[in-house]
């Protein structure tokens, strides 16, 4: 009741949300700074996974963590050399060896 009255009277946001959200981002950024070696193994792993689906260049042109004020992004950039025919846009099957029906992609 008191909390409700307080809310009605002040419309003050709960400050714990602010604390939690700020911390979540701060911890994310701290952990990235410390991740060092694991970025390199992530890069290799992603390259391996990609080459299971398509023929790509030897390495990423870009593979970096970017920070904005309110989020952290992994930005990667690699040249695609060749795509097999099964890579249609709406191919939901996780198995790349199954071939989609022709024309199914626009449905």
């Amino acid at each position, binding site marked *: 009741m008191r*909390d409700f009255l*307080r809310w009605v009277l002040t419309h003050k946001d*709960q*400050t*714990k*949300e602010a*604390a*939690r959200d*700020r*911390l*979540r981002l*701060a*911890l994310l950024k*701290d*952990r990235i700074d*410390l991740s060092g070696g694991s970025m390199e193994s992530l890069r290799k792993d992603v390259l391996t996974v990609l080459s299971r689906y398509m023929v790509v260049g030897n390495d990423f042109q870009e593979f970096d963590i970017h920070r904005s004020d309110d989020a952290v992004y992994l930005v990667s950039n690699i040249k695609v050399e060749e795509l097999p025919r099964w890579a249609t846009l709406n191919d939901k099957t996780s198995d790349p060896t199954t071939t989609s029906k022709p024309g199914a992609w626009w449905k």
Partner: protein
Amino acid sequence: MMGKTIVVTSGKGGVGKTTATANIGTGLAMRGHNVVVIDSDIGLRNLDVVMGLENRIVYDLVDIIEGRCKLNQGMIRDKHKLDLYLIPAPQTRDKDCIDPEQLRELCQKLEEQFDYVIVDCPAGIEQGFKNAIAGAQEAIMVTTPEVSAIRDADRVIGLVEAAELHRPKLIINRVNSAMVKRGDMMDKDDIVELLAVDILGMVPVDDRLITATNQGIPVIHDPKALSGAAFSRIVARIDGEEVAIPDLEPRTGIMDKVKEIMGIKGGSYTHA
């Protein structure tokens, strides 16, 4: 049977590491274990005053390590006649006058004699921290529900895990349950989710802890203190007992309602 060494650490200073160490050591001794607590904060000795033993210091940690006294000469017995001993830190030396290997050897020697060796770690992540964690098999992280303390705790948890002290356990100290209730303080679940660790206990903010510390008595001796009760539950959990972690709730007795209406708001909280 061999004892075990537990390090009490935090990263940030002033969150209650030393108070936690004193109360955990005392509580384990009250449960019948023989315990030694080590103040590893060389140059900034503190555990002795929290335990009320500051006038009994003759030798210290570095005297023991450098062989200027025998092990039993360097240990100060608790004044409540518990099977509890303190090894104080030297006040006039530097943190790098000992190395991790020396502290590890000392802890191993103490484990032959004691059930529990509790090491109070200095704040920070430098030499003193590295020394303090060297001999430990387990780690307890102390934090308060504040952004700065939790952030530092996250960093230290990473370092502790890198030192192969797996699954450090978390104590959240100075929880203000009224603030938690109105959404102005992060609660247990928020903090556990952010840090991804197991929780060992929560200690409410408590005036009685300060008055006990003023007298050099660990608050766990005070049967009326809510913080003391919280430490008792923490100690029971360390000792292998399964004790639920109660949510902290503001005390809602009729007198508290009266006080609240009159605007006399004390720090009296109870556990649901």
